[in-house]
């Protein structure tokens, strides 16, 4: 743009006598902003209330129960259209008196990866680009727990290999989660039952949480997720396995859509060796509490004081 005095005035709005005139209005800053504001308000008023709600969202935790219901019904209609089948999108809240815990028996795990794909099936991860929440690390028995030497790409004919042991890693559901403290918009938080969740509609895709997580547990939708409708799991939770979009982070939610209804997570139910244990940490009779009392238990990277609720133990 040529740097004439008239242009300078139009940009800075300091010289009303020099402003260009359109339809008899002088185009200074005040009039311009007023016109734009009115136009935007007009467009929004002309939209359906659903579109307006989608555009002017509130944070999920600030919604009233009625507003949650409205959002769930809007989204389930959206997902039903997208997947070509009815979906059951729930917003079940945490049960009082329940804090979920998970324990994995390293002396049993054989590294068969049945849990990895059961999780993908249950939680509607993108098939291609491939997203998997559980990563099974193969480690040498001679070296012990060693993340640097771990191999997630092992592929022998049969497992377990006698020289190796296997450490499946997903979200550790920390009591002091670093991912939630770094999130600049509050799109991820810890629920009262201890599950760290993500609101995919609030996530801006900055990936700060992924940098903050010491366990590499979060996955990012670099591309448009691809979920064939025939493979979709129609039982969904708002904070869990509903379809994601490009540019949002996701991770294990302890299968919130199952566990808040009393079921076991999908990985627990598929494990052919029964290495995965799940329950309520606040119930002293629960199997998870018994494991913490009776077995040799540890957490990953305990020195970081993240205090995971995902425990590893040796059953024998």
């Amino acid at each position, binding site marked *: 743009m040529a740097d004439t005095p008239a242009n300078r005035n139009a940009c800075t709005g300091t010289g009303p006598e020099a402003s260009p005139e359109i339809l008899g209005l002088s185009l200074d800053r005040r009039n311009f902003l007023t016109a734009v504001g009115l136009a935007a308000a007009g467009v929004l008023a002309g939209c359906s209330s659903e579109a307006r709600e989608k555009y002017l969202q509130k944070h999920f935790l600030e919604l009233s129960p009625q507003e949650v219901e409205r959002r769930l019904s809007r989204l389930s209609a959206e997902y039903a259209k997208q997947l070509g089948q009815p979906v059951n999108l729930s917003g079940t809240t945490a049960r009082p008196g329940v804090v979920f815990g998970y324990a994995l028996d390293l002396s049993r795990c054989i590294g068969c*990866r049945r849990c990895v794909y059961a999780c993908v*099936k249950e939680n509607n991860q993108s098939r*291609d680009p491939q997203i998997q929440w559980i990563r099974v690390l193969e480690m040498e028995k001679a070296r012990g727990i060693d993340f640097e030497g771990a191999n997630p790409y092992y592929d022998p004919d*049969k497992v377990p290999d006698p020289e190796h042991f296997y450490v499946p890693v997903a979200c550790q559901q920390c009591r002091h989660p670093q991912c939630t403290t770094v999130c600049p918009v509050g799109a991820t938080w810890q629920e009262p039952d201890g599950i760290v969740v993500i609101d995919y509609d609030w996530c801006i895709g900055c990936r700060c949480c992924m940098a903050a997580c010491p366990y590499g547990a979060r996955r990012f939708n670099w591309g448009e997720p691809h979920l064939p409708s025939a493979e979709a799991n129609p039982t969904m939770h708002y904070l869990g396995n509903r379809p994601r979009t490009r540019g949002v982070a996701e991770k294990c939610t302890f299968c919130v859509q199952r566990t808040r209804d009393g079921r*076991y997570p999908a990985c627990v139910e598929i494990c052919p*060796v029964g290495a995965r244990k799940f329950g309520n940490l606040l119930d002293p009779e629960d*199997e998870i509490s018994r494991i913490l009392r009776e077995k040799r238990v540890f957490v990953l990277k305990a020195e970081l004081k993240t205090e995971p609720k995902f425990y590893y133990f040796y*059953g024998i």
Partner: protein
Amino acid sequence: MLVMAGVTVLVILVSIIRSQPVVTPAGAPADKAYGPADFPAVYAKDDALVGIDSNATGEAKAFAVPAPPFSEGVFPCMECHSGFAPNPERRPLEAMHGDIVLQHDEKNRWCLDCHDANDRNQLHLANGTLIPFTESYRLCGQCHGTQFRDWRSGIHGKRTGYWDGHKRYLLCVNCHNPHSPRFAPLQPLPPPIRPQFLRSSDGPVTTAASTQRSSVSAAKEADHGGHAR
């Protein structure tokens, strides 16, 4: 001049490093994105709630177990065994059951230490108490006390169903062949795709179903080797 030489060396080094072939393990092609739909034998069935009876009480409620995994047509045993007198002499089986290989303290034990000589439809404990096959965990628990204790409290073995209510237990023999209890090795499902192959512009770049390696197909057909009897 020196700078030019340095840049040239750097470019050559970088190009050598970049042209290193990607190390892929034997087996799966590294650029295939497998999904659960590629393994119907593993994921098609969902028996997590089989055997759970919400009206059950007592022991049946405490340990809801599925049926024992008999070989086809073998139970009830007395259909054959009622026709002849039991032979209590320890011997290799030749006429029948020749497929059973005992690898379970075989130096000290044989068939009639667990199976009852007179009522083949039942098992017997060390003290002679007869127990049905559906309670075989009591028999196993005589020797494997710590495993039995952990199994009862939910630590040993697989649980499905409801963490806050009715759980489905498995009998010891649903996972361990009682004649050869070591858990049989399995073929692992394919590793995750390596990050360099993750890119996909719109829609899938590759469809795993169309280009499966033979070993993956084998896994689809013969899953859960540990259950074979």
